[in-house]
């Protein structure tokens, strides 16, 4: 894992001191709320419906047990005993007092954490594949590059007051688990035929009210040029991005209005000026950072574990092994997804007790490492297959043994009207009701891979545009309504879901989703044709008919 050196420690300490000073000036009235707002946002402090919310950065979703324990502690002391993992691999506390924030930041700094740039119109916390550093299919560890980007973008003097927020994601496996094509900049690493590492660079993807799949502006950018190229993109965006209308201020609108060819030309021209200068990342520096992310000392094991295979005689464990265990690059190991989606619970929530128990499991069975996924789950990246039955049993004890990773109840939902000041409708209760409706795990297994994503308003924090089934909360004359989109996907076959028709009432939405699912089950060619593939084959018509024909 990345470890802070003296420089990083000093940086974060100064940042805490700076924010302590800013909070003092705000509380004394020297600063108006208007002046304070962008400053607190850059430190992750939002004002929500009922209280301040603090969003803590978990760079590229990587956590140690010690860090998770500290988060559990903060949840217990300063919040109501729980935390909420977000779709940006961060953690939010929803019930925070402003006056406590400097103290919380200090406690975070002690475990090498902070809340810098988790909101505001700046370069946000960089996300990466949540199986990074462990996945059998990756060509490199994307966190190395995410860390380089984190350093470069931290308090960047030129890019701290952008037209709007700016999100980067990095992935390094052919299968894109980081949804890079719906980010402002998406970096998809590959190795060329000479064995050199580089990135396909995608620009201008995003969700919100104008969802767009990013355009590929570079097929292969050598890794040394990563920062020069990103600086070129950011400079063009900072200068040319729209500032007259906050709904048109993201880079996707600039890309769309300028045109793919012209924006590519402009980026390349700016890059030509920057290339080969101060921002070139020297190979030894990449190697140095890569060493921080070296695999922990894992044992040499046989690929097949008898303990693991025998445990599969229990059908519950067999399903867990099938759904929540992913192939590891080292024989005899697996990557375990801890589902934060037990029946009836708010997606992504974990209590302080659960966090502590998970920290213990990670310390004992996963080389002290954890990941947060953008699907609001936690991941144990390095577990011996031999140990997975024990880990499963321990997870069941804390109520987190659900074998539903990637199933219909593995739902992403934004905070919605329960917390968010911008919401039109509640998201969490819809997720809870859906997970109750589809509680039967045999039925979930029959349905197979199906991603439901729910947003409480058009800002799309719940990523509904890229849900196989997307649900969007809208306000219709003061009443909560829900629109369904179908066929979205955030992976390397990225597509934006299409609205299927008029919305459904809060009472009707769960039935409507069930209708969509039943329609799919009837029309699929076989159990091997997942929902998305079936939808792409047949299109909207059968679903529309089932939903609206009376």
């Amino acid at each position, binding site marked *: 894992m990345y470890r802070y050196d003296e420089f990083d420690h000093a940086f974060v300490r100064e940042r805490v001191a700076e924010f302590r*000073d800013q909070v003092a000036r705000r509380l004394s009235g020297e*600063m108006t709320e208007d002046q304070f707002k962008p400053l607190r946002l850059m430190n992750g402090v939002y004002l929500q419906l009922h209280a301040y919310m603090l969003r803590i950065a978990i760079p590229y979703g990587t956590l140690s047990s010690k860090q998770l324990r500290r988060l559990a502690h903060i949840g217990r002391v300063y919040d109501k005993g729980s935390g909420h993992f977000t779709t940006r691999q961060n953690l939010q506390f929803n019930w925070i007092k402003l006056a406590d924030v400097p103290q919380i930041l200090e406690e975070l700094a002690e475990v090498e954490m902070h809340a810098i740039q988790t909101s505001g119109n700046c370069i946000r916390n960089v996300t990466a594949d949540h199986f990074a550093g462990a996945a059998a299919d990756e060509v490199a560890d994307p966190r190395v590059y995410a860390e380089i980007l984190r*350093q470069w*973008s931290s*308090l960047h*003097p030129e890019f701290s*007051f952008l037209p709007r927020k700016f999100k980067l994601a990095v992935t390094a496996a052919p299968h894109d688990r980081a949804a890079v094509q719906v980010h402002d900049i998406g970096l998809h690493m590959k190795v060329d035929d000479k064995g050199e590492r580089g990135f396909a660079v995608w620009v201008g993807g995003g969700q919100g009210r104008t969802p767009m799949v990013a355009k590929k502006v570079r097929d292969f950018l050598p890794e040394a040029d990563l*920062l020069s190229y990103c600086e070129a993109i950011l400079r063009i965006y900072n200068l040319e991005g729209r500032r007259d209308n906050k709904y048109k201020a993201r880079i996707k609108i600039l890309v769309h209005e300028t045109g793919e060819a012209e924006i590519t030309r402009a980026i390349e021209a700016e890059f030509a000026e920057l290339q080969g200068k101060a921002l070139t990342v020297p190979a030894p520096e990449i190697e140095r950072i890569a060493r921080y992310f070296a695999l922990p000392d894992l044992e040499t094991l046989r690929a097949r574990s008898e303990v693991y295979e025998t445990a599969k005689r229990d059908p519950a464990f067999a399903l867990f092994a099938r759904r929540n265990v992913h192939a590891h690059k080292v024989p005899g190991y697996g990557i375990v997804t801890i589902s934060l989606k037990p029946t009836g619970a708010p997606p992504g929530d974990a209590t302080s007790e659960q966090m502590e128990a998970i920290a213990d499991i990670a310390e004992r069975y996963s080389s002290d490492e954890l990941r947060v996924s953008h699907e609001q789950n936690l991941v144990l990246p390095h577990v011996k297959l031999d140990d997975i039955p024990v880990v499963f049993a321990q997870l069941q004890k804390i109520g987190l043994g659900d074998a539903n990773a990637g199933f219909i109840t593995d739902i992403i939902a934004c905070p919605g009207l329960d917390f968010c000041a911008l919401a039109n409708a509640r998201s969490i209760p819809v997720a809870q009701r859906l997970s109750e409706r589809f509680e039967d795990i045999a039925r979930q297994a029959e349905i197979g891979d199906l991603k439901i994503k729910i947003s409480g308003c058009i800002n799309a924090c719940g990523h509904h545009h890229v849900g196989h089934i997307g649900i969007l909360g809208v306000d219709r004359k003061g009443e909560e309504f829900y629109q369904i989109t179908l066929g979205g996907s955030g992976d390397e076959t990225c597509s934006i879901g299409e609205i299927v028709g008029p919305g459904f009432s809060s009472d009707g939405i769960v039935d409507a989703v069930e209708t969509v699912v039943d329609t799919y089950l009837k029309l699929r060619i076989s159990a091997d044709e997942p929902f998305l593939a079936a939808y792409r084959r047949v299109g909207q018509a059968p679903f529309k008919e089932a939903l609206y024909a009376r």
Partner: protein
Amino acid sequence: MPDDASIFRNGTFHADTWTFPADDVPLPPSGDIAVGKTRFLAEIQTLRARNGGIGVVLNPGEDPDGIVEHLDRITLVALRFTKYSDGRPYSVARLLRDRHGYKGELRATGDVLRDQVIFMLRAGFDSLDVAHAGTREALRTGSIVGVRHHYQPASDEAREAVGPVSPWRRRSV
């Protein structure tokens, strides 16, 4: 400190030696004057012919095209922050310093607040026109609390002592 000493440069406040004639006021025959971009482009010959420094004021959204050819004669570029949250002047500042090699005074004017001072200096500004009382006080007493460990190269290298470059482009000042 007299009230007219509003320009913070090289660590202290100075009175402004520049005048900023309105667009419809004729240019005075001597003295340092700064004008907007449109006027600068229209009257460059007159400006060059008179005695006194030439300055130009750019609003957010105005690029330095047309100005850069004359940078050898320009001794003040003032970039206006109409709202401190509009960050375009930072990019213009960096372009002037890094791309066009501008060495003269680069002034931030308008909504200049203490919490952005470090960003401004790092982007290449070496002069701040400060109207905000709290910011003046903080600059005068040297009480700005901020982050002085920098991860990335910027445009202030020439003016700030380069600390230990550890391990790569990091710098503490």
